């Protein structure tokens, strides 16, 4: 098997397994009471990490680039209770605009 196909199969099998693990082992049952409070905090913790890394993350470094004003503009739109569609479009337009101007 070529390197490419080894990677495709290896990553595919691993990812399918990781994604399946929780729902296959724990699916459809309420979590023990002690764990519920902890799992409920996974959502804000992971979402906030995704916001941070997708806004400021580079190749093993933190970078301030045109994404930052885009996401700040999105934050203003969220504050003004704009629908998610508008929030996403605002971020893309501001970021694209700044990149067009600054080259």
């Amino acid at each position, binding site marked *: 098997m070529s*390197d*490419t196909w*080894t*990677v495709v199969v*290896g*990553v*595919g099998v*691993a*990812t*399918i397994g990781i*994604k*399946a693990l*929780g*729902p*296959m082992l*724990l*699916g*459809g*049952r*309420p*979590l023990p009471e*002690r764990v519920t*409070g*902890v*799992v*409920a*905090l*996974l*959502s*804000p*913790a*992971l*979402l*906030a*990490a*995704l*916001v*941070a*890394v997708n806004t*400021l*993350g580079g190749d*093993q*470094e*933190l970078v301030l680039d*045109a*994404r930052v004003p885009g*996401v700040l503009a*999105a*934050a203003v739109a969220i504050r003004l209770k704009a629908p*998610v*569609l508008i*929030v*996403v479009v*605002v971020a*893309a*337009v*501001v*970021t*694209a605009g700044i*990149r067009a101007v600054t080259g």
Partner: protein
Amino acid sequence: MSEPAREERSHRDGVRAVAPLAIAVVGFGISYGVLARAAGMGVLAPIVMSMTTFAGSAQFAAASILDVGGTVAAAITAAVLLNARYGPIGVTVAPWLTGSAWSRFLHAQLTVDESWAIAAEGDGRYNPRVLLGAGVTLYAAWVVGTVLGVAFGDVIGDPSTWGLDAAFPALFLALLVPQLRGRRAKEAAVLGAGIALVLTPFTPAGVPIIAAAGACLLGLLDRPTPRADGGSAT
């Protein structure tokens, strides 16, 4: 925000909510197809990878490592680290997936960052219909984008020219804000973001986000809600 007679969201609501992101996902699918071909992965392998792995950042990482002549082990390790977050993410949705084993497996495979975020209903609740609707839409967008990229090459240029890379954090932020009810949720968000940012310069990609999941342990500081005493057998 917490109107009692809230309508149950359906599959279609998931499709509708994720539609703007699906456009960005097609764009990134195209650039993945282009990068994968340039990396010498051929025509079929990138498409099969999008259909099976269905996780953008991991696929980009694997392709770029192959592109610079990295080892198979390095490519697989990077991709697995990037996808490790789907372990805890799977735990958050698991209690709400009440169908058969096949149905749970299908929902699990369609759980990616965006479908997961959109399916959240606050207080740790997830809507499996929204998850499925959004997940199928994103899957189609990712696979179609990959095929377009592999077949037609660089038709849109770099997606970041269009600001599409800012669309994802904006979505995550829009979906995070309604979840910040209560002090612990705010603390977990701040701690999670802080852990991720502090680790970014020092660890391989993917590790900062999986480490940020540790912020949920703040929940251990709270005692479980006390039940009415008197030893009622419930």
